[in-house]
């Protein structure tokens, strides 16, 4: 499952993800990382069964962890099913089925945002996650 790890400026210099991985023995597959002066944000994959343990470990070290339930929002009213999004997505979230209808597998989304810029019809946006 995809999670977002938010790291505030006071702990941004500490290797808390590495510490949590060593401490719990649970692997994180990092797909996005953005840091600026105020905070850092990392999107990563973690085994769903072991999320609670990883979440607790990271939270104890000062990070905030959220599940990315709907990483990408698809507005079917705006979408014209052109498939512009298909070729720019690095993780194959989008595909056309046999009758050329767009299929969206949001579980694969890493929130890179490339499709949001590409979509000519403002039909895609990054989700607000719980």
């Amino acid at each position, binding site marked *: 499952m995809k999670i977002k790890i938010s790291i505030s400026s006071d702990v941004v210099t500490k290797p808390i993800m590495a510490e949590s991985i060593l401490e719990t023995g649970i692997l994180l597959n990092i797909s996005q990382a953005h840091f600026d002066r105020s905070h850092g944000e990392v999107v990563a994959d973690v085994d769903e069964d072991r999320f609670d343990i990883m979440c607790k470990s990271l939270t104890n070290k000062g990070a905030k962890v959220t599940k990315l339930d709907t990483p990408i929002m698809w507005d079917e009213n705006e979408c*014209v*099913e*052109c*498939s*512009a*999004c*298909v*070729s*720019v997505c690095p993780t194959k979230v989008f595909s*056309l089925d046999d*009758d*050329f*209808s767009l299929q969206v597998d949001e579980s694969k989304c890493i929130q890179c945002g*490339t499709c949001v*810029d*590409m979509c*000519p*019809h*403002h039909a895609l946006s990054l989700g607000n996650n719980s």
Partner: protein
Amino acid sequence: MVKKSIHDINSKIRDGSVNVVTAEDMVHIVGELGAEEAAKEVDVVTTGTFGAMCSSGVWLNFGHSEPPIKMQKVFLNDVEAYTGVAAVDAFIGATQLSESQGMDYGGAHVIEDLIRGKSVHLRAVSHGTDCYPRKIIDTNLSLDDMNQAIMMNPRNAYQKYNAATNSTKSTMHTYMGTLLPSFGNVTYSGAGVLSPLSNDPDYLTIGTGTRIFLGGAQGYIVGQGTQHSSGGGFGTLMLQGDLKHMSPDYIRAANFTGYGTSLYVGMGVPIPILNEQIAQATAISDAGVTTKILDYGIPSRDRPALRDVTYAQLRSGCVDINGNDVPTSSLSSFKRSRQIASELKEWILRGEFFVSMPVERLPKDVSAKPMKQTEGIALVSDIMAVNIITISKDASVYDAAKTIMDTEFNHLPVVSSGNTLVGIVTAWDISKAVSQNKFDLVEGIMTRKVITASADERVAVVARRMDQNSVSAMPVIDREGHVIGMITSDDISKLFARRS
């Protein structure tokens, strides 16, 4: 020999015995029966396409105000429309951008808002005349309030279109969408098997006066579109239709990041099957329509073609470029193109739509000319400075500061022992180093990622690179990386000042 007339077919439409199929079905019908039998069986083949067609717009007549105004400038939701025709007529073009919202909203959005029944704000200004005394007007109008709203698209329904990719190391934002670096993707447009003009490439039934499906309503072909290039298989159509009867299912505003707005137009042409030659032409499949993949990384009118490609290959999801599988994206919607061909078929079957012969055929074997440029095209070599000073990467910061003071060059290209460019140092870099009490070698303070130009590039291209990278000077280098000149924003300003 099969020979039918338009009159025969329209009689069949009237009595309900007409046989209509889509251009996709026709591929199989001709495949099974052959062209002659297919021409006997089938009366009309419907086509359809739904994609970005920038060269689109609407003529509006607003009615006269009291007291009346002769509009000189008019804005609809802050998007300028052209009103240099009499008093209260204006043409709103799809790609005109909002004065206040820029690329987020444009003429295409005004058109979609009107179709959706929304009212738009009209502001017009005038100098005032004896016959039209009013100087300014603000009002809100919806489609019902206009006398006419006639869609008039100068260039729609390209027979086929070149596919796009990007050889450069940066992402490009184009009217063909996002093009990822290093041939990261290919985008294309066009309906292939359903493309109207590809199903009648000799323009036997399509021409001025042909009744068509446009935006969900009945419309007409005015004639050849602008840039019509039938010689190379890139024919275009000029279309007209009544906006008041159109549907947002088939007319949609679009935004291409970094490019601006465009209009997705849905249109379809019925092809009456008068003989087997026409039947054979409508049997074309995606595999039978070949186009080229162009490199949009080359900022030139003549973008190099990387390879030929068919619509079948493009639609498969990936194509081969230099031995790599590159994913493809369609910008036009094949699903909606199918819906248009099907809806047009239903109209004809229900006896609501009759086919027509053109009163004038489209021109064949013509090609669009490039622009004649009387001012000449300035190259970097024409305006670059050739008396240049470079500095060694092993020089001290003090030496660099002294060189800048002695020569009044603000930018010093930094070179290695082999005299090749390795960095650039500016007066600002030196000030920064001094403020940090850093007095080591130039190598330690220089910018390593240098934005460069080559002597044979066009000045307009280099000016845009300068702007995009927020630099004011660029070393001009040869193929070996030796610095042979400098070009600055001042040089470019002088070039344009001299011309005006």
